[in-house]
């Protein structure tokens, strides 16, 4: 009892401080709030930094929280731009009918295994599906040694998990036999430590601690992602509630400009300019109407 009192007091003070700070910053006109996909977060942060360097007095906050949280944030007006690594769901569209998705780049998802797993270098999309639905449980079923496959998943709601479910599982259910790791980093460090494991992470998070598997004999290289021959890929999106205006429109324009796309490329994403057939939008008007046609396909 005695201890609860000061703790509660402190939390109250902290809450007041945070609320106070939140109020002042959101009423200021020169602040842009982004929230959403953790896959987009590092990209958006890099863009925000460059943007703020060019536009003094402007603050761009990039929050995470996941795709769904980003959609809610933009739908309820907490954020001006929601970031998403998955297309809007029907229920999200029903809840916030004015939401508009704008693709900003192509992001691949790499299927990764431990570097010690030298026997397996390629899997077909169907094999990956069967591993994740639980129909294949032993590495020897896909050309590896006779050990159980330790399947690593992301948590429910993760955009990366959602991407795998759409592209690889074709909407099917994940087997419940695997474990769930709470972030890209956690998946990577788990797979780096377990020779029998398989996991998935965004291609831009790849490094030598894990080994990316070829899918249908195609490696997740930049060129293969750009021309779509590596099939586990999706568009990363900005989502606005109604046509973007003011700072949001300006930031979207910047993102789609060649400077913005160069930053995304440096972040390991595939620039829209390298996607065959992509037509860059005009960047002079403030109410940008990006080519929403490019969002239609994610495979």
């Amino acid at each position, binding site marked *: 009892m005695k201890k609860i009192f000061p703790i509660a007091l402190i939390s*109250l003070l902290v809450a007041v401080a945070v609320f106070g700070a939140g109020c002042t910053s959101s009423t200021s006109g020169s602040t842009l709030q982004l929230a959403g996909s953790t896959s987009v977060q590092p990209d958006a942060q890099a863009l925000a930094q460059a943007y703020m360097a060019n536009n003094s007095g402007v603050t761009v906050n990039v929050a995470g929280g996941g795709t769904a949280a980003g959609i809610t944030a933009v739908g309820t007006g907490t954020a001006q731009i929601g970031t998403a690594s998955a297309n809007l769901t029907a229920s999200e569209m029903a809840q916030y009918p004015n939401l508009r998705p704008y693709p900003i780049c192509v992001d691949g998802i790499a299927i990764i295994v431990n570097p010690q797993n030298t026997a397996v270098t390629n899997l077909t999309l169907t094999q990956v599906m069967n591993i994740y639905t639980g129909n294949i449980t032993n590495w020897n079923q896909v050309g590896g040694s006779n050990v159980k496959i330790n399947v690593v998943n992301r948590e*429910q709601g993760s955009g990366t998990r959602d991407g795998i479910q759409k592209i690889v599982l074709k909407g099917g259910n994940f087997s419940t036999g695997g474990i769930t790791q709470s972030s890209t980093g956690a998946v990577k460090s788990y797979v780096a430590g377990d020779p029998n494991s398989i996991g998935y992470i965004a291609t831009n998070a790849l490094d030598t601690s894990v080994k990316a598997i070829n899918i249908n004999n195609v490696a997740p290289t930049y060129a293969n992602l750009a021309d779509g021959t590596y099939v586990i890929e999706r568009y990363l999106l900005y989502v606005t509630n109604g046509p973007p205006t003011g700072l949001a429109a300006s930031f979207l324009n910047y993102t789609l400009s060649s400077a913005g796309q160069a930053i995304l490329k440096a972040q390991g994403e595939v620039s829209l300019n390298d996607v065959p057939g992509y037509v860059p939008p005009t960047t002079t008007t403030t109410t940008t109407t990006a080519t929403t046609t490019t969002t239609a396909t994610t495979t």
Partner: protein
Amino acid sequence: MVVTFNRAVRTLRRSGTRDAGERFIQLILLVCAVSSIFAIFLIIVFVFSQGVPFLAEAGLGFLTTSVWLPADSFAAGTWGIFPIILGSLIVTLGAVAIGAPLGIACAVFLAEIAPPAVRRLLVPSVSALAGVPSVVYGFFALLVIVPWIRGQFGGFGTSILACWIILSVMILPTIISVSTDAVRAVPREYKEGSLAMGATRWQTIRSVLIPAASSGIMASVILGMGRAIGETMAVLLVAGNSVTIPGSIFAPVSTLTATIALEMGYATGAHQQALFAMGVVLFVFILILTGLANLASRRRVTF
């Protein structure tokens, strides 16, 4: 809490003749007390208002079925948290089963056996153990214990056993410090009486000291249990978080707290309410534990 409040009000009324400075301080204290109660009350109301309607709608199946697909974009949400409740219970009870005997043994050692020099070294170490952030424990377990389990027993390594090991260590400081106080509070005369009859030190500890300290020790165990069931970060890292009924102690599990933490960031709509409903379930668990703790510490020292 309520008693404190009433007392504060009464003191305020009586203090008419005291000087203004003192009254002012009392007023501040009263405001603090009221606002802290209010804050706790608000949190409880909020969690229940979010969770209870969902519980009412989802019905008993929420607690008894085993398929948990709250955020599946291809299927309507499926809500069954039985494996998660089970996971929380297994993880908590196991951690206490390991941590309590260890902690009590440590407490007896510190209170009765350790030479003063050793005690001076160990007591601050135990407090330091309590101050380590849980994410550090979790990270340590992820890097050391999980690979060890994987190497020894196969499987993922992230498992019930990993949770037990790390949680039992994490609840040690609570159990040790509260139990040590309980053992030291046993009147010296009991110990002398026993020794003077030719009982050995161990017989004295087992037959007199521990029984006489049992209510305090019990309270320490239940406090430790509360810490174990509420622990989130460390468990999140080493549990594996799969929503299935675990087949062995080497299988991954998920717990109420870890699942809430894992999914809260993404959850919207019904999913979010389902997580709050899990919060309500957790709250009820903790309420039961706190009740037990109070009972245990109030129980008269007879046996």
